[in-house]
C-alpha cells in the first residue's frame, strides 16, 4: 500500500493531449525515501519503463511501474509491486491495466479491461487464497488508470499555463473513481542525480484522505520536451516521502 500512496500522489491531468514526450523504450529509475526529522532513509527502487506491444490490430504502448524494496529492508518489510497499463501511444488512452502488489504478507491483484464505447471497466480483483471478485464499473469520458494518468501528465503544455492554474483529474483506483487536482506552481531549478534541471513544479491534491495537507504533495518535471519526473515530495499519514531520479535512458527527445 505504501507504493500506492506514492502513485496516488502522482495523479496527472486527464485531458486527451497528444503524446510527444514519451518514448517507446524509456527507462526511468527512482529512489523512494522516507524522511524523518530531515534524515532520509532509502526504502525502495521505483522503475518506470515503456515498451511497444504488438497485437494483430495495433501496436500499443506498455507503461510499467515497479517498486522493490532495497535488500536491507527485505527481511523486515518486502515490497514487490507491479503496475502496468497498455495504452494508445498517441493519446495514452488505456485498454488494459494490471496491478500486482506484494507487500509483506499482503497480496492483491487487480485487472481492469476498459471499454471506451460503453464507458465501463471490467475489473477482476484477486486476493490471497485465490479470493476472486468481478465487478463492472461505469466510468467517465476522461477516466484513466493510475499509470496512464501518471504518464499523461507529460503530454501537457505547461508553457501555456500560468502560476496557480488548476486542472481536475479523474482516476479509477481500487474500483472507484477518484477526483484529484493538479496545480501548476511555476518553474524552479533543482539539482538532481542527472544534473541541474529547470523544472515545472506541480502541486497534487486529492479528495482521498491518504494524501494529507494542501500543497504538501509536490512534483518536479523537467521543463524540456521530455517532461520527465525528476523529483517528488509527498506527505502521507506516516510521515514524508521523497522520490528522486537515479538514472534515465531511452528518452525520445
Amino acid at each position: 500500500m505504501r507504493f500506492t500512496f506514492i502513485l496516488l500522489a502522482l495523479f496527472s491531468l486527464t485531458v486527451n493531449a497528444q503524446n510527444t514526450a514519451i518514448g517507446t523504450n524509456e527507462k526511468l529509475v527512482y529512489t523512494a525515501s522516507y524522511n524523518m526529522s530531515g534524515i532520509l532513509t532509502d526504502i525502495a527502487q521505483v522503475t518506470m519503463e515503456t515498451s511497444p506491444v504488438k497485437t494483430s490490430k495495433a501496436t500499443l504502448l506498455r507503461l510499467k511501474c515497479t517498486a522493490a524494496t532495497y535488500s536491507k529492508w527485505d527481511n523486515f518489510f518486502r515490497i514487490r509491486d507491479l503496475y502496468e497499463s497498455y495504452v494508445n501511444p498517441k493519446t495514452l488512452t488505456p485498454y488494459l491495466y494490471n496491478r500486482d502488489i506484494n507487500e509483506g504478507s499482503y497480496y492483491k491483484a487487480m485487472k481492469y479491461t476498459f471499454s471506451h464505447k460503453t464507458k465501463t471497466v471490467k475489473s477482476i480483483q484477486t486476493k490471497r487464497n485465490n479470493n476472486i471478485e468481478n465487478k463492472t464499473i461505469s466510468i467517465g469520458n476522461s477516466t484513466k488508470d493510475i499509470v496512464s494518468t501518471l504518464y499523461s501528465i507529460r503530454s501537457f503544455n505547461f508553457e501555456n499555463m500560468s502560476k496557480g492554474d488548476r486542472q481536475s483529474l479523474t482516476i479509477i483506483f481500487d474500483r472507484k473513481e477518484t477526483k484529484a487536482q493538479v496545480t501548476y506552481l511555476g518553474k524552479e531549478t533543482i539539482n538532481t542525480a542527472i544534473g541541474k534541471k529547470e523544472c515545472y513544479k506541480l502541486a497534487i491534491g486529492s479528495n482521498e484522505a491518504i494524501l494529507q495537507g494542501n500543497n504538501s504533495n509536490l512534483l518536479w518535471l523537467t521543463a524540456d520536451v521530455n517532461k520527465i519526473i525528476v523529483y517528488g515530495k509527498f506527505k502521507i499519514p506516516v510521515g514524508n516521502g521523497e522520490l528522486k531520479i537515479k538514472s534515465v535512458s531511452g528518452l525520445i527527445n
Partner: protein
Amino acid sequence: MKKTFIVLALVSSILATIFAVLPISNLAIIPALAALIFGLVAFYLSKKTGDVKKIIQFIFLLTIVALSLTIFKAVFTTTEVADTKTLDTKETQLKEEAIEELENIDIDVEEFEDIDIAQ
C-alpha cells in the same frame, strides 16, 4: 535530577542501539546524540556529588557502539535491490496474458492511424 538524566540517557542509548540494528540505522543519530548529551549532564551532576555510577559508563559504551554501527552501515552498506525473480516472473506472465487479452479487446483502430512506433 541526576536520576532523571540517567534514565533519559539510558532510554536514548537503548533506542539508538535498536535503530542502529534496524534498516533505519540513519535515524539512530538522533537518540545517540540525545544519549550523549543526557549522559554528559548525568556525568557532570554525578561528579559534583562525587558518586559516578557505573551505569553512566555503560550508557556511553552503548551509545558509542550504536554510533559505530550506524557509521559502518552508512559507509559500507550499498543500497541495491536483490531478488527480483518473483517480480520478473510475474511481469512476463502478466505480459503474455495481456497480449492474449488485448487481441479480444475492442480497440478503435482509426485512433492508431499515423502512429509510427520504433521497435
